[in-house]
């Protein structure tokens, strides 16, 4: 019992100093800090949209039509006379939600899969990782297109489909982390104390593998958001009246010559978010000293 407490304390101390160090290093990386700031800003806006959006999401003004940015409509209006800033704010809610939820799906599947394979080792590990190899070999973009065509467009499927693609790398990272952590003394101590594998994984392994997981997560979100945008571009993603940045871009591209602001502003929003996430991910990788997590 005492050993348990001591090891927990040690671990906690080790944890805090590690995180403190990482935070200090991250703060020195200017690009990463800007990325973090931008991201927090976008997320805050997305959360507050229903209260702060300048116009109603659905309200049309057919007489107004598409107008360039003005004092009344900072980012202009679309062909129905709807305020573009409002559209982008609501679109951001969906785009970010897809990014986070689908990544969470990938995270859960990937971590569980990788942790079990890494912890069990041997034949179980071989079979599980072979399956990952097999799935890696599939042309996934093609499968997602097919899935969306077959089952129709719905949000849940979108999350599942994207999550199902993105968990593979996560599983590989988790497995290698678990394999190296298993050799560590504090894990062996926990094993000798008779703790169940699930508890060990939850209490000792996951917290220690957190660094690479966080880094990979920040890099997965942008690729998920891109995927959603791709699908929306092909007409297979989000369904109107809901909108997303990808959908707004695909509408905007149709009329980019007459109404360039309809393409440029949603494009800018998506690009800025992706930039921020990538900078933050890179910064975190340097700060947490994680190698080779991007492949």
């Amino acid at each position, binding site marked *: 019992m005492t050993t348990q407490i001591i090891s927990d304390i040690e671990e906690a101390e080790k944890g805090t100093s590690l995180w403190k160090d990482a935070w200090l290093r991250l703060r020195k990386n200017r690009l990463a800090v800007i990325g973090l700031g931008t991201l927090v800003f976008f997320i805050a806006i997305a959360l507050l949209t229903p209260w702060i959006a300048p116009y109603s999401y659905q309200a049309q003004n057919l007489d107004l039509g598409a107008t360039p940015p003005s004092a009344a409509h900072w980012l202009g209006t679309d062909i129905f006379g709807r305020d573009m800033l409002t559209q982008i704010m609501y679109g951001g809610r969906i785009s970010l939600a897809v990014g986070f939820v689908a990544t969470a799906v990938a995270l859960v599947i990937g971590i569980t899969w990788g942790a079990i394979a890494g912890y069990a080792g041997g034949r179980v590990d071989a079979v599980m990782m072979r399956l990952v190899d*097999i799935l890696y070999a599939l042309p996934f973009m093609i499968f997602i297109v097919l899935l969306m065509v077959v089952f129709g467009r719905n949000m849940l499927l979108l999350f599942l489909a994207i999550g199902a693609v993105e968990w593979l790398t996560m599983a590989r990272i988790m497995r290698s982390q678990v394999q190296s952590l298993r050799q560590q003394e504090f894990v062996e101590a926990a094993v000798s104390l008779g703790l169940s594998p699930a508890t060990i994984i939850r209490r000792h392994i996951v917290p220690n593998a957190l660094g690479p997981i966080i880094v990979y997560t920040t890099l997965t979100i942008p690729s998920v958001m891109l995927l959603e945008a*791709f699908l929306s*571009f092909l007409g297979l993603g989000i369904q109107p009246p809901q909108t997303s940045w990808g959908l707004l871009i695909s509408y905007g591209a149709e009329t980019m010559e007459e109404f360039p602001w309809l393409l440029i502003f949603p494009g800018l929003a998506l690009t800025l978010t992706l930039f921020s996430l990538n900078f933050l991910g890179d910064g975190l990788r340097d700060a947490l000293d994680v190698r080779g997590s991007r492949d």
Partner: protein
Amino acid sequence: MWRFLTSRVLQSIPVILAVITVTFFLVRVAPGGPFSSEKAVMPEVKAALEAQYRLDQPLFQQYLAYLGDLAHGDLGPSFKYPGRDVNELIAAGLPVTAELGFYALLVAVIIGGLAGVLASLKPNTAQDYVPMTAAMIGICMPSFLLGPLLVLVFGIYLDWLPVSGWGDIPGDKLLPAITLGSAYAAYIARLSRAGMLEVMSQDYIRTARAKGLPEWQVVVKHALRGGLIPVVAFLGPAFAGLLAGSFVVETIFQIPGLGRFYVQAAFNRDYTMILGTTVFLSTLIVVFNLLSDILAAWMNPRLRAQFGDH
């Protein structure tokens, strides 16, 4: 080494079989059939059509028949384009997509390589950040945004380059290649930056410097060769990825490639064409992954020694 190779090849077979099976049954679940149209098809006509394409048989029997044809290399007739068969459609689309992929890779190597090398020469300075950030645009700007923007600027405002087509007008391959390639430029920039940083700290570079060679000669003549090896290893999988992912660019620029055929087939419920393209692309990806594994093994000195033994 041969054991490694054989086992890898054997492992690929169930992968491809799984792809075929899943795709075959998946497309049949999709609502809407290949023959539906705005003007409703009369039941008599529909029955006659289904009989002609074997669609009236039990699904499992159709599946076995498909596998049988596949074993002979026959991917079947296209439903959407009567008179064309899938083999021929793939044969028509593949060279276009492969050419596009090749140019895109070229663009990626040139932009990414340049950015990576520049960045590696003065790490953690403006010369590092600016090119690496520029290269990142490719990742952060989806091709369906970058494509239209390039068209807007170079095709319309400046009127320098054609806006669509493939091989119709000189220069019409440039914008699609840049659009598709830029997504990979950032990866190549990272790889070459890391590779160069590692090489620049090697002994033979120090020797070259000690000999009093100017810095640019050290870089070009000595460092570049070693620093870009990781990039070369990356090209195989990247090319496979480009082939499978080119359909957005092909759609934007109206390029008659495999990706566009695939997407159209999916929308048209051209069962045989969807299957054919999926099987073909999966096989291609498997083969490219295999090749890059072999290349990696061959470049890895320890594994290479085994190569020599056998």
